[in-house]
């Protein structure tokens, strides 16, 4: 057997192995299970999805969708067979939840409290739902200074006001010193499905363009540097912000031509692209030289040996738009404050299905896979 055919056969075996749902076979939870890479995927696909089996969850969108009649949306509710999207014009609700354990709780450009609002608001926004209300659970560590708590609560109130949502229910718990790090927050968000939205993680089609709403990797890098583990100083501030204005602009501009949006949080742009390429059974091709990265972020990432594509964002979304609507959507996005650097970074291809490829700035083409380990500290 010639080398070429064997190499190709192995590539196919690997591709087939990857396409299967992850199996959760670990004996213990390790930090990698929380990193948004492959271990997280096995935890979700191998344990959580089978346990709670239902179509809304199986879509692995950023929010669960409850249509107007109160029934959980079925996998084929959309116009196209197999779509997990929502029928245009449907009035329904979207529900999502997120926990925030970032360390330190205050970092350049943001705080745990601000993330707790924006993170959940953004999961609703990229699901095509206008954020309405949040619940808030706080887990506080014995000994936390009242002043620090007061500041975080203030941050939560301010972020909620800016995002136009109300905190309508809540809970507090206190745990013994050492059983939490200062404070954790969990927010659940309720949103109203936007009648313009026709979004689904399975809706990506060959030819679609990939837009990013701004320069990437700022949040994760800001938090990493704020932890003082690297003795590295740089003027990098978190990108945390509500993405509803960006989502709103995209929906207005592209309407049904907007296939899907995703906020590129844990695991960064690379992980979000991998999840969607897999869900839609297409290939995502990224042009590395087009991806906006601020010089300070690029330099810090270079020094630390980290690829910005894998670094978390808390105020950046990826939008997948039909080719004919891409230019308009990009212009609309750039008009939104905070999204001035929005860029088209790639396109959707047919093959190899379920994979992400990147054309490197140097001229080669390679795979951009999910991250296997957990090189990064807690960032959200």
């Amino acid at each position: 057997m010639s080398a070429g055919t064997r190499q190709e056969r192995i590539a196919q075996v690997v591709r087939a192995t990857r396409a299967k749902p992850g199996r959760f076979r670990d004996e213990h939870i390790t930090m990698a299970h929380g990193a948004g890479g492959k271990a997280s995927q096995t935890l979700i696909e191998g344990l959580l999805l089978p346990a709670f089996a239902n179509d809304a969850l199986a879509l692995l969108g950023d929010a669960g969708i409850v249509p107007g009649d109160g029934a959980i949306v079925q996998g084929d509710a959309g116009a196209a067979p197999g779509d997990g999207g929502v029928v245009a014009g449907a009035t329904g609700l979207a529900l999502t939840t997120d926990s925030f354990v970032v360390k330190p709780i205050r970092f350049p450009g943001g705080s745990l409290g601000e993330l707790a609002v924006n993170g959940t608001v953004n999961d609703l926004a990229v699901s095509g739902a206008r954020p309405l209300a949040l619940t808030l659970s706080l887990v506080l560590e014995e000994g936390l200074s009242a002043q620090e708590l007061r500041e975080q609560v203030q941050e939560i109130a301010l972020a909620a006001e800016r995002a136009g949502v109300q905190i309508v229910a809540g809970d507090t718990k206190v745990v013994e010193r050492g059983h939490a790090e200062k404070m954790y927050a969990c927010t659940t968000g309720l949103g109203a499905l936007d009648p313009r939205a026709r979004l689904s993680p399975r809706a990506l089609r060959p030819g679609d363009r990939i837009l990013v709403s701004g320069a990437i990797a700022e949040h994760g890098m800001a938090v990493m540097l704020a932890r003082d583990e690297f003795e590295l100083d740089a003027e990098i501030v978190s990108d945390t912000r509500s993405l509803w204005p960006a989502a709103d602009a995209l929906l207005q501009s592209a309407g049904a031509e907007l296939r899907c949006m995703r906020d590129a949080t844990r695991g960064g742009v690379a992980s979000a692209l991998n999840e969607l390429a897999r869900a839609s059974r297409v290939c995502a091709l990224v042009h590395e030289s087009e991806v906006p990265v601020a010089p300070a972020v690029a330099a810090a990432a270079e020094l630390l040996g980290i690829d910005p594509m894998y670094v978390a964002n808390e105020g950046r979304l990826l939008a997948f738009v039909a080719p004919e609507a891409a230019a308009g959507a990009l212009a609309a996005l750039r008009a939104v404050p905070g999204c001035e650097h929005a860029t088209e970074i790639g396109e959707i291809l047919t093959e190899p299905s379920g994979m992400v490829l990147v054309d490197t700035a140097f001229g080669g083409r390679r795979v951009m896979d999910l991250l296997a380990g957990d090189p990064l500290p807690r960032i959200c």
Partner: protein
Amino acid sequence: MRFVHEFRDAGLGRALAGEIRALAERAGAEPGRPVKLMEVCGGHTHTIYRYAIDSLLPDRVELVHGPGCPVCVLPMGRVDDAIAIAQRPEVTLACFGDMMRVPGSHGSLLDAKARGADVRMVYSPLDALRIAARNPDREVVFFAIGFETTAPSTALTLRRAKAQRVANFTCMCNHVTIEPPLRSLLDSPELQLDGFVGPGHVSTIVGLQPFRFIPAEYRKPIVISGFEPLDVLQSIQMLLAQLADGRCEVENQYRRVVAPEGNPLALAAMAEVFELRPHFEWRGLGTIAHSALRLSDAYAELDAERRFPVPGVRVADPQACQCGEVLKGVIKPWECRVFGTACTPERPIGTCMVSPEGACAAYYSYGRHSRPRESEAALQAAAPAQAAPQVLA
């Protein structure tokens, strides 16, 4: 980024690729047999896959991945020893990130951590010393790995620990040296290598002298190379030029960093703190005499292997695993029996699948996509009529 982007210039890369293509016709011993160049260092392997450099090379030039990934050459027994120390209730074990995922015979340090062992990731041995200073009630053990590249920073940390009399700090030393495994490879009858892309970082410390035996005794060229994509391409071009001219020398492509004499201060620190082990086991290469370092008698009190009992049991590699053959360049990553199926980066069997510098992990993460090499016509059309980029010299 200045001083980085210059070395990733796609236009210069295409120009070099054109020169490599022309030289490849004249280089090489026998017609028909490809020119086999080994990049010794895992950092080069990573660059080659990260930038898809192999897709720019003609079929006639074949890159063989070498043993220069310190995580990859560590035998399972040493991981077991580290876990035995880490599981002691009084111990905090500090190590570099990718080391945590290397499987021993009963799981990795990461697994030991999940079971309750206090294992911390550090970015520098000084971080480990700092942990010791801040936690006087803990026995902090730094698990040191690496070639001559990282050995000086371990040596300086141990010097400082001794000077400051930090009583709760020790080092489990797994530092290895570059020359013995190269010799072992050159003596291996399985391999037919035509030249080496030499390890730039190691050379920063040791200089060029340790590599002179390669042309002198084995008649093979070696070019010490930097780690940016243009560095690697230019080194390949320089190797092919030597082969085409019938020369074999030690050449230094990485002159902006590597001095011919290396770094005398770093070498002095190493000489003070370390001594050669009589022998050390290398994964896949077997036991090699005088190929690794341990703490010298002057630093005995800082030696974790003397402070704590370690099993020291030699553990055979898993049968299915072919890391040894991959490390020697006998097979390509994808030719291993378990590549990509039983052995993946998230569930590695062999060490080569663990570190991002490991040949298997690099190939799995970046290179699986089967990729036609650029056609000769396309390369020639793209290559401007200019010489090798002078900016690099």
